[in-house]
């Protein structure tokens, strides 16, 4: 998964220690993704040993399908979190988009205009968040908490207790939800494409690196001539568009939609992002990690059901993982800072 990114085009960060320090930093952060993969392999292996059905074609397809929407949202969220901001409104955006898209599709729109409409609604929400955060300088937490409720209210107003059912939706949309190409379901493929595109951009383009620079130190980034506001606006726009797309995929997957779909999902998304190694204080992490975090959380949920464990443990384990992830981040950050200091002193 991290394959394409190893060919980094230009050295984006000019750390004093030069190449060796950079590869060290790379290694440390690659280690996070590696440890997630190891945790996943262990989890899947153990569950599969107890119940081989977990590793059957259908079992793997189920996990990928369950992860797709969460991972897509985690990718969008991590772009925002990397700039030291937060988007709490994603759950509401997914709910709103799922409903209004269902509404227009049930009203006779084609699949492509419907998808474009859904993404556009998501983009509008992202734009609103972005403008308030970047140009009006209101803290992201407050802005997106506000839009969380506003967007939810709009959703409830439009839905007004209605329900849109599978039978009202075009068959093309429904087959997008559970169809597959060469045995791989569409939903995870869509997520994969967006993850790779955004991951490549953030890692390999100078403007992509600026997102990290802003997250590491907004003031320094501004002094270095980084267009801070524009980048933050872009981050929210990306998050909004992906939340819009996730709303459409939600509809495709579940086929039935009411006024409060994805209610409360913002916290699951942020958990996935943090477990995936994106520091909540910004500047660190990758969209691949975030997607892996989403995959891990979803797999734990499915594994516990298959292992017939009390569902109570699912939330407890998610919480423990979050605490672990944050502690590891803290320790790693201190280690890296010390190493970098030493290297620059000696050579």
């Amino acid at each position, binding site marked *: 998964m991290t394959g394409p990114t190893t060919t980094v085009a230009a050295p984006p960060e000019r750390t004093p220690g030069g190449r060796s320090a950079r590869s060290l930093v790379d290694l440390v952060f690659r280690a996070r993704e590696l440890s997630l993969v190891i945790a996943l392999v262990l989890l899947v292996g153990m569950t599969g040993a107890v*119940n081989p*059905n*977990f590793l*059957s074609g*259908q*079992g793997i397809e*189920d996990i990928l399908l*369950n992860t797709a929407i969460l991972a897509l949202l985690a990718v969008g969220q991590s772009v925002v979190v990397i700039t030291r901001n937060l988007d709490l409104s994603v759950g509401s955006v997914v709910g709103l988009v799922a409903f209004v898209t269902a509404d227009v599709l049930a009203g006779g729109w084609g699949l492509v205009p419907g998808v474009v409409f859904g993404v556009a609604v998501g983009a509008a929400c992202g734009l609103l968040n972005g403008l308030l955060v970047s140009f009006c300088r209101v803290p992201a937490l407050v802005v997106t908490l506000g839009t969380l409720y506003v967007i*939810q*209210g709009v959703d*409830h107003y439009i*839905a*007004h*207790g*209605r*329900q849109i*059912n*599978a*039978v009202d939706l075009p068959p093309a949309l*429904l087959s997008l*939800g*559970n*169809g597959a190409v060469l045995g791989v379901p569409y939903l995870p493929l869509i997520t994969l494409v967006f993850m790779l595109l955004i991951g490549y951009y953030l890692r390999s383009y100078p403007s992509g690196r600026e997102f990290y620079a802003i997250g590491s130190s907004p003031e320094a980034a501004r002094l270095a001539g980084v267009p801070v506001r524009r980048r933050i606006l872009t981050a929210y726009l990306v998050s909004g568009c992906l939340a819009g797309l996730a709303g459409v995929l939600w509809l495709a*997957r*579940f*086929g*039935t939609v*009411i*006024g*409060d*779909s994805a209610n409360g999902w913002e916290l699951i998304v942020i958990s996935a992002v943090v477990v995936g190694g994106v520091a909540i204080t910004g500047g660190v992490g990758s969209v691949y990690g975030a997607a892996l975090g989403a995959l891990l959380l979803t797999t734990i*949920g*499915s594994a516990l*059901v*298959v*292992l*017939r464990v009390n*569902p109570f443990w699912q939330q407890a384990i998610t919480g423990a993982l979050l605490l672990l992830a944050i502690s590891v981040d803290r320790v790693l950050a201190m280690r890296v800072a010390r190493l970098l200091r030493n290297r620059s002193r000696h050579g």
Partner: protein
Amino acid sequence: MTPMRLTAVATLLVLGVAACGGTTRSSVTAAPQEAPASSAAASANPDAPLKEGIKLAFLPKQINNPYEVIVDKAGIEAAEEFKGEAKEVGPSDASASSQISYINTLTQQGHDAILIAANDANAVCGPLQQARAKGVKIVSYDSDAAPQCRDLFINQASSEEVGRSQVQLLAEMIDHKGEIAILSATANATNQNTWIEFMKEELAKPEYKDMKLVKVAYGDDDDQKSFTETQGLLQAYPDLKGIISPTTVGVSAAARYISGSKYKGKVVLTGLGTPNQMRQYVKDKTVEKFALWNPKDLGYLASYAAAALVSGQITGAEGETFKAGKLGERTIGENGEVILGPPFTFDASNIDQFDF
């Protein structure tokens, strides 16, 4: 009782309570003692005509719940038949605390009756008692409030009948043989648990000796959770023959999952769902049969029952009867319950006759 006198009584009561130097607690306890006195004064007169201009308010569990909206709309339409006024108000979250402020407001606005689907049987009790003390009639529907806090409960179907008929429906489709599972809503939903108890009782009968209930799973009435739980059931119990999901969210999520998986045609799914929600899955043959009462009739009956209470035709005592428009005469049963009727089974042959 005229509105003037009602207000007077209410004012007196409030004054009386205030004079006692009452805290909120004492006003709650003081109220019920007065309430029966005022309602006893208007004893049941089955021949009394339905009053015109009765003001009803529907307070659903949650304003976004499509099922409750269907019920309430039908109730509002029924009110037009007897020239009453009805409206629907309610919280956007299904919590008892948010219902309480609605109960208080509706009482102050001088409604003749409040029809409530309680989010918590006991938490809404105090405010309902205060409303009754002011002469407001309380009818619960869908989900009951504690019996001492309401005049009537319109029960969609007897819990026993729902539970047993679900097992009968599934047994018929799997020839009374094989492992089965239940996909419920939340682990502490009262109606779900009562139905599940009756399902277990029904399964204990000798004719179901070859059927085994292996698991009760909880999808929390959440699409994603219901999906995951359905997948888990099918993976953890490879010999599963049938699933009963007595909740509208659960049954449609399970149907959606099965329709796109290898289990389609191998596992029988049934439960309680609305025809619109399930139409797609009946047509693509994922689901053969499912059941539900008619939610429109529930709202209609509740509306007429409230009007009969307000008009003094009934007081809520067992054995009293009233006429519920097109549904005919209904009798009040034990605990002030009026039962709508047995659940109705939907299948490919009749589903297109329904639109809700």
